[in-house]
C-alpha cells in the first residue's frame, strides 16, 4: 500500500501536527471570531479528516511509527512528548474525524438558534483536539493528560445549557465520577512508572516489550528495574480498568452517562455514544498485555453484567435518549466482555461499527426531538419532546430519518447485512469459545450474552415501532386537532450526515462477504490469526438471529399494531427495570436516610439528594468534613484557648497574693524565702 501514497516520516509528523492543531486553533478562533465559529470549526475538522485519511493509508498494513521529543527528565526516568502510529491509532483517528465532521455539519442546523453557538463549536473543537491527541499519545502520562481533557470538554458540553439545574448537576456528576476513575488511572501510572521506569507504550507493550520481560515468581513481581509483591500486578490492572470503567460507563460507575443526556443531542451522539466513551475500551486494548488472568475475568464479568443490566433498563424507558444511552452502556459492556475474553480485535471492531450506528441513532433521535421542539415552540405546548409516548407514526412525515434510523436499529440488533452482524457475532463467538475452553460455570457468560443480544433487538425495535409506526399520539394526548401539528422532514444540514452514517452501517463497507467475519479487511489486519473457523462460527450467528427475528415480530405486533401488550406495567420486574435497577436510590439510601433526620443542619444537602452517587458520597464526605470543621473549631482552637485559660488562672492566683496590704507582702516574702531555704536544706 505504501506505493500508493509515498510520504516520508517527516510528512507523517507534520500531518499528525496538523491533525491535532487544527481543532486546537479552531478552539481559540471560534471564541474570537464569533460570527464564523461554525465555519472555522468545520474547516478545522475537515482538515483533520483529510490528514487522518492520508495517515491511515500510510500506516495501515505497515509497521509501527514512533516519534518523540524530551519533555520532563528526572534521575531514574523521563517523560517524553510523542506520537505513536499503529493500526489502532490510525483507525481511531479516521473514525473520530469522520464522525466528528458529520456531527459538526449536523450541529450547524441543530444549534443555529442558540446564542451561545460560538462557544458550542469551540467546545466541540476542544473535544476533538483532546480526543485525537489521546489517540495519538505515545505514553500513558500523555494519555492521562488528554484523558482528563476529554472529560473536561465533555463537562463543558454536558453543561452547555448551564442555566438548566439538571444540566449543571449532571456535568458535575459526570466530571467527578470520571475523576474517581482517573484516580485509578493515575495510580496505575504510578505503579508502571516505579516498576518499569518508563511510561512509553511502545517500550512497555510494543517493541520494547518490558511487560513480557517482567514475570512473577514466588509472590514477587519482578521487572528489569524493580520488584514488588505480585498483588501489585493485579492492582495495576484493576486501576487501569477503573479508569476505563468510569470513562466507558461500566457498572458501578455508569450512572453519569444517562444524566449526561442533558447536553445537546449532537454532543451526546459524538461524545457519549461514538467516541469518548469508547476511549476506555481503546485504553484497555492498548495496555491489554498487562492484564493477568484474574483481572481479565473481572473485566469480563463486569462487562457482561453491565451489558445485561443496561439492556434490561433500556427495555422500559420512555425517554428516547435514555433508551439510547442505556443501549450505549450495554454495548460498551459487550466490548469490555470481548477484552475480558481476550479478543481485543472484536472489541475494536465492535467499537468501530457501534460508533457509526449509535451515532446515527442519536442523530436520528435528535432530528425528531428537534422537530418536536419546533412544534412545541410554535404552539406553546407543554410536553416533553423526548418522551416516546407523544410520538408515533412519524414514518409518513419523515421517511428518510425513519429509514436510516431503522437501518441503524438493525445494525444494533446485529441483523444480517449490517455491520453490527459481523462485530457483535464476533464477540459472541469468542465468548462461546472462551467458555468452551474454560468450561463449568463460565458457560453463564454466553447464556447471559445471548439473552442480552435478544433484549437489544427487543428494546431498540420497541423504540422504532413506538416512534415511527402506529399513529401520531401527540394530538390525542393533547386533545388537539390532528392537522395543525405538521412534522417536516429534516433539512439538508441534518439529512445528509445521517445518510452518510447509514452507509457505514452496512456490511459491505467492512466485508464483501456479508456472512463471513473473517473476510472483513479490518478484522484481518487487527487479528489475522484469530477465528480460523470452528463450530461456533456456524451455530452462534444462526440461532441468535433466528430468535432475534422472532422477537422483532413480537415487538412489531406489540408496539406498532398494538395487537396486545405485555401486562407487565404493574409487576416488580417492570418497575425494577424502569427505575434503572434503583441504583441511584440505593446509592442515596446508603447515606441519605440518616442525613434526612438532620435535614435542618444540612438543609443545603437536600437540594442535591436526588442525583445519586456523587452527592451521596459527597454527603458522606461532608459528614466527615463538617466533623473535621468542628474538630478545627473546638479541639485545635480549643487547645489554644485552654492555654489562655491557664494563664488566666495563674493570673488570678497572683492577684490574690498582690492584695495591696503591705504586711501581707512582707509575710509572702518571708514565706517564699523560707520555701527557698527549705528547698536548699532538702537538696
Amino acid at each position, binding site marked *: 500500500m505504501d506505493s500508493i501514497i509515498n510520504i516520508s516520516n517527516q510528512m507523517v509528523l507534520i500531518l499528525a501536527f496538523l491533525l491535532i492543531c487544527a481543532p486546537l486553533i479552531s478552539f481559540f478562533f471560534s471564541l474570537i471570531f464569533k460570527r464564523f465559529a461554525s465555519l472555522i470549526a468545520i474547516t478545522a475538522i475537515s482538515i483533520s479528516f483529510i490528514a487522518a485519511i492520508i495517515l491511515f493509508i500510510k500506516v495501515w498494513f505497515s509497521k509501527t511509527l514512533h516519534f518523540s521529543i524530551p519533555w520532563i527528565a528526572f534521575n531514574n526516568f523521563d517523560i517524553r512528548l510523542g506520537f505513536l502510529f499503529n493500526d489502532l491509532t490510525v483507525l481511531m483517528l479516521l473514525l473520530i474525524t469522520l464522525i466528528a465532521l458529520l456531527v459538526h455539519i449536523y450541529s450547524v442546523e441543530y444549534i443555529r438558534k442558540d446564542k451561545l453557538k460560538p462557544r458550542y463549536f469551540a467546545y466541540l473543537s476542544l473535544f476533538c483536539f483532546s480526543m485525537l491527541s489521546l489517540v495519538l499519545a505515545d505514553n500513558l502520562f500523555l494519555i492521562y493528560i488528554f484523558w482528563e481533557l476529554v472529560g473536561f470538554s465533555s463537562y463543558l458540553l454536558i453543561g452547555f445549557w448551564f442555566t438548566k439545574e439538571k444540566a449543571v448537576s449532571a456535568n458535575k456528576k459526570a466530571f467527578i465520577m470520571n475523576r474517581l476513575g482517573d484516580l485509578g488511572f493515575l495510580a496505575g501510572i504510578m505503579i508502571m512508572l516505579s516498576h518499569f521506569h518508563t511510561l512509553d507504550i511502545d517500550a512497555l507493550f510494543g517493541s520494547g516489550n518490558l511487560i513480557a520481560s517482567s514475570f512473577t515468581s514466588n509472590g514477587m513481581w519482578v521487572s528489569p528495574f524493580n520488584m514488588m509483591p505480585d498483588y501489585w500486578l493485579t492492582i495495576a490492572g484493576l486501576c487501569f480498568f477503573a479508569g476505563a470503567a468510569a470513562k466507558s460507563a461500566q457498572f458501578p460507575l455508569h450512572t453519569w452517562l444517562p444524566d449526561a443526556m442533558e447536553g445537546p443531542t449532537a454532543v451526546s451522539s459524538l461524545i457519549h455514544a461514538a467516541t469518548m466513551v469508547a476511549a476506555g475500551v481503546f485504553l484497555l486494548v492498548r495496555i491489554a498485555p498487562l492484564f493477568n488472568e484474574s483481572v481479565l475475568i473481572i473485566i469480563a464479568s463486569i462487562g457482561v453484567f453491565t451489558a445485561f443490566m443496561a439492556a434490561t433498563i433500556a427495555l422500559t424507558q420512555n425517554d428516547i435518549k435514555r433508551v439510547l444511552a442505556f443501549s450505549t452502556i450495554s454495548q460498551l459492556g459487550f466490548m469490555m466482555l470481548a477484552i475480558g475474553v481476550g479478543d481485543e480485535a472484536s472489541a475494536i471492531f465492535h467499537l468501530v461499527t457501534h460508533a457509526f450506528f449509535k451515532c446515527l441513532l442519536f442523530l436520528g433521535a435528535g432530528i425528531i426531538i428537534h422537530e418536536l421542539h419546533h412544534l412545541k415552540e410554535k404552539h406553546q405546548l407543554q410536553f416533553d419532546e423526548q418522551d416516546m409516548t407523544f410520538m408515533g407514526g412519524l414514518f409518513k412525515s419523515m421517511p428518510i430519518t425513519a429509514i436510516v434510523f431503522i437501518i441503524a436499529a438493525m445494525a444494533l440488533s446485529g441483523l444480517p447485512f449490517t455491520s453490527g452482524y459481523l462485530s457483535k457475532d464476533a464477540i459472541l463467538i469468542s465468548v462461546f469459545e472462551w467458555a468452551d475452553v474454560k468450561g463449568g460455570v463460565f458457560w453463564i457468560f454466553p447464556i447471559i450474552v445471548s439473552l442480552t443480544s435478544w433484549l437489544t433487538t427487543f428494546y431498540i425495535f420497541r423504540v422504532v415501532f413506538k416512534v415511527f409506526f402506529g399513529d401520531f399520539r401527540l394530538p390525542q394526548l393533547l386533545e388537539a386537532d390532528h392537522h395543525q401539528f405538521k412534522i417536516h422532514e429534516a433539512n439538508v444540514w441534518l439529512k445528509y450526515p445521517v445518510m452518510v452514517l447509514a452507509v457505514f452501517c452496512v456490511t459491505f463497507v467492512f466485508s464483501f462477504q456479508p456472512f463471513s467475519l473473517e473476510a472483513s479487511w479490518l478484522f484481518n489486519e487487527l487479528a489475522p490469526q484469530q477465528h480460523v473457523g470452528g463450530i461456533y462460527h456456524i451455530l452462534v450467528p444462526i440461532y441468535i438471529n433466528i430468535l432475534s427475528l422472532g422477537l422483532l415480530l413480537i415487538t412489531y405486533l406489540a408496539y406498532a399494531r398494538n395487537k396486545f401488550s405485555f401486562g407487565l406495567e404493574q409487576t416488580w420486574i417492570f418497575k425494577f427495570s424502569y427505575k434503572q435497577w434503583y441504583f441511584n436510590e440505593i446509592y442515596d439510601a446508603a447515606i441519605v436516610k440518616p442525613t434526612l433526620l438532620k435535614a435542618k443542619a444540612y438543609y443545603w444537602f437536600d437540594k442535591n439528594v436526588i442525583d445519586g452517587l456523587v452527592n451521596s458520597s459527597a454527603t458522606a464526605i461532608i459528614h466527615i468534613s463538617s466533623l473535621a470543621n468542628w474538630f478545627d473549631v473546638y479541639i485545635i482552637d480549643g487547645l489554644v484557648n485552654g492555654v489562655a485559660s491557664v*494563664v*488566666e488562672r*495563674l*493570673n488570678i492566683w*497572683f*492577684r490574690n*497574693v*498582690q492584695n*495591696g496590704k*503591705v504586711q501581707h*507582702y*512582707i509575710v*509572702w*516574702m518571708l*514565706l*517564699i*524565702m523560707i520555701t*527557698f*531555704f527549705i*528547698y*536548699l*536544706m532538702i*537538696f
Partner: protein
Amino acid sequence: MRTGLDIAQSTENIIASLSYFVPELIISVGFLLIILIDLFIKRAERLVFIASLVTLLFAAIAYFIQLNIIQTNSLLLFNGMFLHNSYVIGFKLLALFASLLSLIFFNQDRDLKNHPKGINDFFTIFLGGVLGLLTLISSANLLMLFLSIEILSIASYLMVSYTNKEKLQAEAGMKYVLFGATASAIMLYGLTFLYGFSGSLNLYNENIFIAFEHINSFSASLVLLMILAGIGFKLSFVPFHFWTPDAYQQAPTSVSSFLSTVPKIAVFSFLFRLAAPFQLVSIHFSSIILFAAGLTMLVGNVMAVFQKDLKRLLAYSSIGHTGFLLMLLVLPNDSIMSSNLWFYLFAYSITNIGAFMSVAVLDTNFNVKTLEQMKGLGKLNTLIAPCLVIFMVSLTGLPPTVGFIAKFVVFSSLISETTAISFLVPILIVAVLTTVLSLFYYFNIPLHIYLKKPEGLIIKKQKLIFLDFIIVILAIIVLIAGVFPDFFKIF
C-alpha cells in the same frame, strides 16, 4: 594583741585613691552646690537643672577619661572600700547615661513641674541617689555596700512620695518605705553574719571564702538568702517585687522610669560581681537564682497580661525583664558575660525609658492613663505613637530592634551552658514561653493605638515639647542598635 593598720600607709593610700575618685567628688560637689543655689537664689528651677545636668556631664566625662587611661588590673581604693576597673566604670557610665536621660525626663515631667514646693529639692535628692548608686557599683566593702544601698533607698523613698497630693500616692509611698526598710533590715542582719564568719568587711578578702568553706551550708544559705533580700528589693524580683507595681503606678512617670532602670543597672552590676564568689561559697546559689528567675518571669508576664493601667503594665514588664536578666547570673563570671549584661541593660534601659517617656507625653497631651483611653491614638498623634510601638517591639524582643539583639545575646550565652548547669533548660523554656506571652500585653498597646477605632478622645493642646525630640532620638537609637549593635559596645 592585734595591731591596727599602719596609719601612714593608709593615709598615703587615701591620697593616692583620691585621683580615681574624681567623678564621685564632682557629683558630691554638685550636690552641695545645688543645695546652696536653692538656698540663695529665688526661682532657680532652670539654673538648678542646668547645674545638675552639668554635674552629671562632668562626671561622665571624667569616667570616659578614666576608661581610656585605665590599666588592665583592677585596684582597690581607700583601703579596700571601692573597686576600680574597666568593668565598674563601664557600668557607672551606663548608669550615668540613664540618669542623664532621667534628669531630662524629670525636668519635663508635668507632675513634678506643677509641684508647689518646686522641683529643686527633688534634684538634690536625685543627685544624692546617683552618688549612692555610683558608689554601690564600685563598692568593695560590706559597709560601703550597705551605705550606698541605704542612700539609694532613702533617695528613692523621697522621690516616690515627692508628689503626695493624692491619697493613692501617699499610700504607695508608705508601702514602699515600709517594705524597703524591712528588706534592708533583713539584708543588714545577713551582712552582719557575713562579717562574723569572715571577720572582715572587705569583700575582696580571700578569707570570706575560706570562712564559708568552714561553716555549714545551713547558715551559709540562710545568710545568702538574707543578703539577697535587700538586693532583690532593689531589683524587684520575686519574692521581693510586691512594692513595684504600686510604687510605679503612683509615682510620677519620670520617677517610675528612673526606678525601673538606673538602680537595676547598679545593683545588677554589683550582684554580678559577687555572683562568682557566691557560686563558689554556696552550691545552691545558682539554683536559687534560677528559681527566682523563673518565678519572676512567670509572675511579671502573667500579671502584665491583664493590666489596664499603662504604668502598672510597664512595672510588671520590668519585673519580667529582671527575671530574664537574672538568668545571666548563673553563668561563669568573665568579662564577656559582663559585657553581655551591660549590653542587655543598655538595651533595656533606653527602651524602657523611651517607653515611659512616650507614656508621659501621651498622658500630658491626651491624658491617657489606661489602655482603653488609648483607642485610636494613632490617628491623632503621628510622632509619639509610632515611637511607642517601636519601644514595644524592642521590649518584646523582635528584630530589627536592639531588644532582639539583647535577647538573642542572653539566649546564646545561656544555651552554651545548658549541658553544664542543671535544669537551665526548663527555665529557658519558661523564658521562651513568657516571651511569647509578653507579646500579648506589649502588642495590646499598638492594638489599641492603631487597630481600634477612636472613641471620645479629648485632644488637649498638643505642643511639641523637648521630650518628643528625645523620644524620637531614643527610638532611632533602638532601631540602629538593632541593626548595628557593634557601634554601641563601648567595652
